[in-house]
Every structure is written in structure tokens, then in C-alpha cells.
């Protein structure tokens, strides 16, 4: 499933680069489709499955941008932390709720870090609303993705299975 996660993440990154700006022209901050999908994947499946997919997302976004790939790796790290450092054994409702929260926080950190990387620290207060809005939409997308990905959730093998 790791390979599937990587493929889906790369496709989502390409869509993020090519399609999202066309659908939302003029938006100051865009919702982050790959982060939402990976947050949902990490919540539904074992979080370690996004270990390869996240750097792949960072690379695709990074090479398509004027900023360097390193900044994108750093910008994706908060989402990775939110997914990987969460307790493994949690009830399903809590696990599923983790996705939108992680996606929202990850998108906030992503937007803030890249704004700082571009040298526009003074614009941060002004952009906070846009970043927050994008993070909110990202969280909503993550919640939708969770609903779609639930059938893929990892089930513990029982005695009679």
C-alpha cells in the first residue's frame, strides 16, 4: 500500500500544481490537496505508509515552484509529525478525527513556512486570514477523503479470519 500512497500523492501533487490554480484563480492561499489526502491516508492506514509519499509530494511541489525543494520538505514536516507521532492505538472515531486536524495544522504550517521562506515575514499578519481559510478547506477535504478511504482501513486479524 505504500506504493499506492506514493502514486496517489504524486498524482494529487500534479493536480495541485496544474489544476487547483485554474479552478481557484486569484486565491491568495490554495487548499492543499496532497496534504489532505495524505492526512486522510495516515489516519485510515498505518501512519508509516506516508513516510515515502510526503517527500515525494514535497519534491513535486518544490520543483514546480520558485522555492527550493528543501523548503517544501520542511513545510511538509509538521504534517508528518502530526501523523507519525500520534498514538497508534486509538479508537476509530479519534483516528478519523485526526485527519482533518492534522491536515489543517499541516496546511497552516506549510503556508506560514513558505511565506517566511519567500522573505515576506512582514506580510504574515495580513496573509493569516488567507492561510487560515486555505487550512480550513484543506481540513474539509481531508474529512471527505477519510470518508472515501475508510474501506481501505487496516483491520486487525481476528481469530477466525
Amino acid at each position, binding site marked *: 500500500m505504500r506504493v499506492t500512497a506514493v502514486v496517489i500523492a504524486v498524482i494529487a501533487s500534479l493536480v495541485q500544481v496544474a489544476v487547483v490554480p485554474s479552478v481557484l484563480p486569484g486565491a491568495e492561499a490554495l487548499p492543499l490537496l496532497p496534504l489532505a489526502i495524505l492526512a486522510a491516508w495516515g489516519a485510515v492506514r498505518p501512519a508509516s505508509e506516508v*513516510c515515502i509519499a510526503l517527500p515525494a509530494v*514535497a519534491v513535486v511541489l518544490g520543483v514546480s515552484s520558485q522555492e527550493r525543494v*528543501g523548503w517544501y520538505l520542511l513545510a511538509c514536516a509538521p504534517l508528518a509529525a502530526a501523523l507519525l507521532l500520534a498514538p497508534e492505538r486509538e479508537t476509530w472515531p479519534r483516528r478519523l478525527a485526526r485527519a482533518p486536524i492534522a491536515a489543517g495544522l499541516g496546511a497552516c504550517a506549510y503556508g506560514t513556512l513558505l511565506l517566511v521562506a519567500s522573505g515576506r515575514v512582514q506580510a504574515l499578519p495580513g496573509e493569516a486570514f488567507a492561510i487560515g481559510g486555505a487550512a480550513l478547506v484543506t481540513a474539509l477535504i481531508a474529512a471527505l477523503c477519510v470518508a472515501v478511504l475508510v474501506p481501505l482501513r487496516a483491520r486487525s486479524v481476528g481469530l477466525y479470519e
Partner: protein
Amino acid sequence: MVRTRNAAWLMVLGAGALVALALSPLHAAGDLEARMAALIAPVTGALARAVQPGADVLLHAGQVEQLTNENAALREQVAQLEAEASTLRDQQASSEQATALQAAVGAGAGYLAASVTVRDPAPGRRGIVIDRGSLDGVVVGQAVLGPGATLVGVVAEAQPHAARVRLVDDVRSAVAAVVQQSRTPGALAGGTSGASGTPALRLDFVPIGSQVHTGDLVVTSPLGGKLPAGLLIGRVGSVESKPEELFESIRIEPYTDYNRLLQVLVLTSSGDAK
């Protein structure tokens, strides 16, 4: 155990990011990123092109009627402006060509200014119809001059109110000409060049070894008798000598683009041609 492994991986990710940032000033790193960007650019480009029409429809779904009306109004406006601009351009071009022609021919020559009304549509035929005819004094054999008083053709047929002019690059055209610098005589003939059949001028019957060089001027010859001598035609574009041939192969570059003639002068008496 899993959490420890995840934490370790997280540290690797952070360290990798810092290393990537530290290496980013290197030329090789930028080069690598550029190569990867070039790899994904066709995919993202194709995606964007595929999605753009749908995105446009979605984004402007509520404004279809307004946009349609605006579009129709703008089209009408553009058509009106194009028509006005086209008329003004034609008037300006005709006026400029006529003024330049009259200035180039000089005061001594008798001439008639004429407008080009028709271009020969037949493939391979290079001719024009002008709006002056025998009632204006146009007769068969008169020289027809284009911009800069260069020879563009000869009157081939005169009707009362119009005349047909055979351009010098027509395949049936033959004009006695001379290379001005070396006074080498030849026959200026029309034809085509290359596989595309582009009209071309050549100077025939110039013996091998003649002193003809690229850039030399070609003018009408006094030997022909039909046209006034010294009318500028063009310059030598290339000279090729083949040992098995008797004559040089000389291509002439005309000074005038015969496809853009709007105004011409019919030389009714030679005077002092330049």
C-alpha cells in the same frame, strides 16, 4: 517501537530538508531541480489544458448570458474598427506608393499613374490588371514601373479602360537586360525556383566567365529596343557556374515585392529614366 521508528524517520525528513536547503545554492542542485521540473512540465501542462475549459465553464457559469452579450458587442465593435483601419491602411499605402513612384521617375518622363485592380489568380501566371487603358494612352509594350521606379512588367494587353500587365517574373516574360557594372548583356526571364514553385527571376544567356558578381545591378538594355534603357530591375542574387553548361546560372533579386503592388506607373515616354 513503531513510534520510535516514526520519530527517527521524522528526524531523517527534517535532516534531509536541511541538507537540501544547505545544498540548494550549488549549481548542481538547481540543475537537478530544473531537470525534474522539465520532466513533470508536460504532465502538468497537459492537465492544465485539459481542465481549463471545464474550469472556465465552472467559474463563469453564472455569467454566461452577460458574457455572450458582451462578446457579441465586442465582435461587432472589432469588425467596425477593422473595416475602418483597413480602409485607412489602403489609402495610406496607395498614397505613399504613388508619391514615391512619381518622385522616382523624375520630371522628364511621361507617365500615367494606375492602380492595381486584379492579380492573376491562375497558378504559375504572374500578371496584374491596372485601371488605365488605351483611352488613357496605354499601349502594348509600355514599361510598367513599381516602387523606386523599378521595372515590374510590360503592358501585354490594352483595353479601353484597363490593361493587362505581364510581370517580369512571369514564365512567358523576356526582357533584354544588362548587368550595369560589367555591361554584360542577358535576357531577363521569369520562372520558378525550388520545389515550392516560388516565382523567381533569372538572367539567361550570360556566357561562362563573364564578370558578373553578386550584388551587381541589373537594368534594362538599350539593345532590346522595346523598353527604355536603364530602368532598374534588381540586383544579382547569386551566380553559379557549371563546367558542363555554356551559360552562367544567375538569379536576380528584384527590388520590388510584386505581390504587394498597389500603385504603378505606366511609362508612356521614356524621358530620362534613372
